[in-house]
Structure formats: C-alpha cells, structure tokens
C-alpha cells in the first residue's frame, strides 16, 4: 500500500490496525459508561434529577450517578454558579480523574442567563472556570434536551483520538503557590506595651521559623485535591 494515497486527515490517526482498534475500544468504553457526578444547584438540577428516575432513565446510556468525584467521568454543571460556588465547582472538577467531560447545562452556566445583566454574584458562564465540552441551552432544558446533549457528547468521545487528549498532569492539579506574605513585626515596638500585649520578640521569632519549616514542604505540592 502506498501511504501517499491516504488523505491528509487520516494521517493524524495511527496507521497500525491494532492501535486504532485499541483507540476505538477505549472510546467505546468511555462513551458507554459515562458516570455523571451527582452535582447541581438550582432548577436545572430538578430536570437533571428526573433523568435518574424511570421516565427518562439515563441508565439506558450507561450513566450511573456517582457521589464521589473520584469515580465520575462527567459533570453536568446544572444550575446557576455563583461566585461563592465557583471555587467548589473548580475543586470538584479538579478532583475528577483524567478522561473527564463537562456539559454546561442551562442558560445560567453558559452566559449567566437572566442574571447576566445586573447580578453581583453570578459567574457569567461556567467556561470561565472549567473547559466545557457541550453547551446545552435552555432555562431549564428539558430532560430530552439533556439526553440530546449526552448523545452529542457520546459522538464527540467516539471521534476522539487518544493522543490528542492532554496527558494527565502528574503532581499539581490546581494552581498553587506559596503565599507571599511575610511576617512583619508590628510597627508599634515601643517599650511601653511590649511586656503587656506582645510576647517577647525572641520567642516569636522561633515560633515563626518552626512554622515555616513545617509548612514549606507541604504547601508546595501537597495541598492539592
């Protein structure tokens, strides 16, 4: 076989038959058992919850709701994400193991929805926080629409090539830095109240040093997840 005959698009995949089928196998397993995280905030979650029940039954697609993000593959960000909820959402997303997908469900998570004009607390679009695979509009979207979004996500997964996915980062998941604060001794170092209000300066120095010795190996790489 002459390799020039193949179109350019096919060259992105591997030529080997075996690796292609392995790729297909992994794609098929991922698309047919997408376990969603049991997460949701507002009225969108009511619609999402009805999918678990017998009328819309997303177990047909192999979806089993998991409560622990460690076992989830998919997060449907159902409902408004407020500034206060945002860190928790990002943390939940970061806690999920690597082949993970996001469906932004509802207008609030796509643009901020009806809160997009004059709200002081709403995040305008969840894609500012986490990468979104499928946008699912509606306020709230019907369960059938959710099933449609899941079907679209399944199609997307089926076309995926394993090498194209970003390799799971070992080590740090969240952006963490050591804090830049440094302890400044109080400007009020007059002799008048040193013995009354503040502890003697020598002991305070020791205590901060030991504190940093304890803290420094931990905070650099382990305070994650």
């Amino acid at each position: 076989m002459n390799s020039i005959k193949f179109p350019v698009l096919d060259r992105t995949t591997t030529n080997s038959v075996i690796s292609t089928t392995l790729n297909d196998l992994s794609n098929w397993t991922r698309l047919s058992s997408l376990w969603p995280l049991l997460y949701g905030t507002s009225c969108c979650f009511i619609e999402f919850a009805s999918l678990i029940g017998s009328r819309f039954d997303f177990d047909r697609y192999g979806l089993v709701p998991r409560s622990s993000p460690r076992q989830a593959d998919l997060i449907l960000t159902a409902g408004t994400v407020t500034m206060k909820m945002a860190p928790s959402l990002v943390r939940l997303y970061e806690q999920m193991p690597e082949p993970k997908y996001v469906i932004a469900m509802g207008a609030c998570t796509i643009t901020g929805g009806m809160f997009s004009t004059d709200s002081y607390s709403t995040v305008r679009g969840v894609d500012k926080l986490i990468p979104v695979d499928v946008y699912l509009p509606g306020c709230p979207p019907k369960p059938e629409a959710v099933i449609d979004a899941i079907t679209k996500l399944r199609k997307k997964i089926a076309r995926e090539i394993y090498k194209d996915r970003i390799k799971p980062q070992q080590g740090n998941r969240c952006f963490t830095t050591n804090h830049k604060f440094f302890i400044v001794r109080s400007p009020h170092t007059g002799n008048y109240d040193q013995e009354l209000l503040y502890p003697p300066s020598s002991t305070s120095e020791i205590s901060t040093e030991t504190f940093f010795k304890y803290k420094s190996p931990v905070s650099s790489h382990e305070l994650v997840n």
Partner: protein
Amino acid sequence: MIIYATAVQTINSFVKLESLKEVYGLIWIFVPIFFLVLGIITGVLVIVWLEREISAGIQQRIGPEYAGPLGILQALADGIKLLFKENLRPSRGNTPLFSIGPSIAVISILLSYSVIPFSNHLILADLNIGLFLWIAISSIAPIGLLMSGYGSNNKYSFLGGLRAAAQSISYEIPLTLCVLSISLLSNSLSTVDIVEAQSKYGFWGWNLWRQPIGFIIFLISSLAECERLPFDLPEAEEELIAGYQTEYSGIKFGLFYVASYLNLLISSLFVTVLYLGGWNFSIPYISILELFQRDQIFGTTIGIFITLAKTYLFLFISIATRWTLPRLRMDQLLNLGWKFLLPISLGNLLLTTSFQLFSL
C-alpha cells in the same frame, strides 16, 4: 566403566523426565485455577448486568440498552473504562495501605472459591476444613477495607472503613454458628460431604428443612457480610459519600466493585451448597444424574447448571431485597446482629446439638 556411564545416563534422563513431569504437573495445577477464575469473572459480569437490569425492572425503567444487545456488554464497558482511567492517590494519605487495601479485599474473597463444589466432585480443593477455610479467609476482607479507609486520609472513608469492620465482625458470629450447626448435621466440614449428606431424598433432604431458622439467619447475615442494601451502611451514599471507596478512582475502585459482587456470588453459592443440596437434581424419585451416570461430561454439565440455577435464584432474591427494603441505622444494625441473630443462632446450635446427641 561403560555400564556405569550408561547407568548415569539413564538416571540423568530419568531425572530429566521426572523434572519435566513436575513442570507439567505445575502447569496442570494452573489450568483449573485459570478456568475457575475465568468462570468467576464471567459470573461477576453477568451479575453486574443482572443487577442493573433487575433494578431497572423493579423501578419500571429499561436499564442499559445501547452497550451491546440488551446492554449485555455494559459491565465490560464499565470495567475497561475503569482500567483506562487515571489513578489518583490522596496527597497526604498512607499510600501503601491505600494501594494494598482493595487487593486484600479481592484476594481474600477469591481464595474462598477454591472450596466450592460446582458439580459432582468438580472442586478445586476438597479440603477437610473447607467451610472453616471460607470463614477464616473471609474475615480478612474487613482488614483490607479498614486499611483502605484509613489510608485514604478522608473522614468519610475512615468512618466507612470502621463501619465495615464493625459490621463484618458482628455478623460473622451468627454466620459461623449457622455453619457450625450444618457441619454438625453432616458430621463434616468438607463442602462435598455436606452436599452428599443432602442428596438422599431429593429436595426433602435439603438442610433447608432441617435448619429453617439457621437458613434465615444465614441469609440475613450473609447479606450483611456482603454490605448489600438493607445493611449497606459502610457505603451509605447519603451519609458517607461512598464510604471507604470515596477516594478511589480507576481500577482500584473497580477492584472494590468486583469484590462486592464476588462476595455476593460466593454467599449465594454457599447458601446453595449448605442449604439447597448443591449440584443434586433435587426432585425425589427422579434422579436424572443416575440416568447419565455413564456420560460423565453430560452429568457434570447438568450439575454445574443446577448449582448455578440455585445460586442465581438467591442472587435474584438479594437484588430484589436491595430495591425493596430501606437501610438500617447503625444502632439498629448492631442490635439486630448482637441481640437478635446471635442468641437465636446460639439456640439453633443448641437444638441441633441436642438432637444429634439424642438421635445417635
């Protein structure tokens, strides 16, 4: 001199032959183990699929539909996906304990399959202490759960591990007492002997009729040992996120998943062996096995089929129980174990012992 050399040669060749035979023997040891493990894995996949389809049926849903015909491949897809998923370790947990925990849970359950007779003397190891081996080894599993709960560095995991240990220990005792009364009836701890002691009068010879109380207690406590739904406190979703499995992802979680279904399968198999006459075709006056006594393979196949049919009946009962009964509270669970099941199983043991003493 020449004779001596030839003698040495023959001895050498004999030794070689012997060593070759030993190697073959070693290989032949692994063949039945391989087939047993293959069968068990297939059984687990079938149970996972059955559980999802039966629970869907009970809730008037459809259940897995698109993975293979009727969703048969759903369990396979789940397993392979878990194999390909990223493996996370909790940052400040105890990594050795975290990694060893699931494997201990699986291995301890898998080992006890070696004493299960699937058909007429189709058993991996017909030990004299078969039942004792099962009870001894199955009490290692909570140590694995405790290790994984502790190693996860998570409050929910730790609580789940503690609950699993408490539950397993408290329900092990009534279970053991029921098994003890069974072994008193058949004067043996070997599983083959127990099945053969029930083989006489068709299904009237089952231990179920001689030990009705013990049967019910065994059923309840084996459900509790499996941590199935009326007793699934260790992984109660609403209280502890997933119990000791909370921090597990990827194939380690898959191992826990497999371990729970392995446990369910072996409990049902033991119910079959201890109370329902094992591989015997249990209709009185028609012993189909004797008709096919000459045809060994057919008889063995029929035996396996009968064992599995009885086993899957109990699997169905436990799956239906899962979607019927609500979960107990922790104190209710312990009260049921210590204040109800333990005295009754003790009384059952006393009755059995005295009957055996006076009749003999």
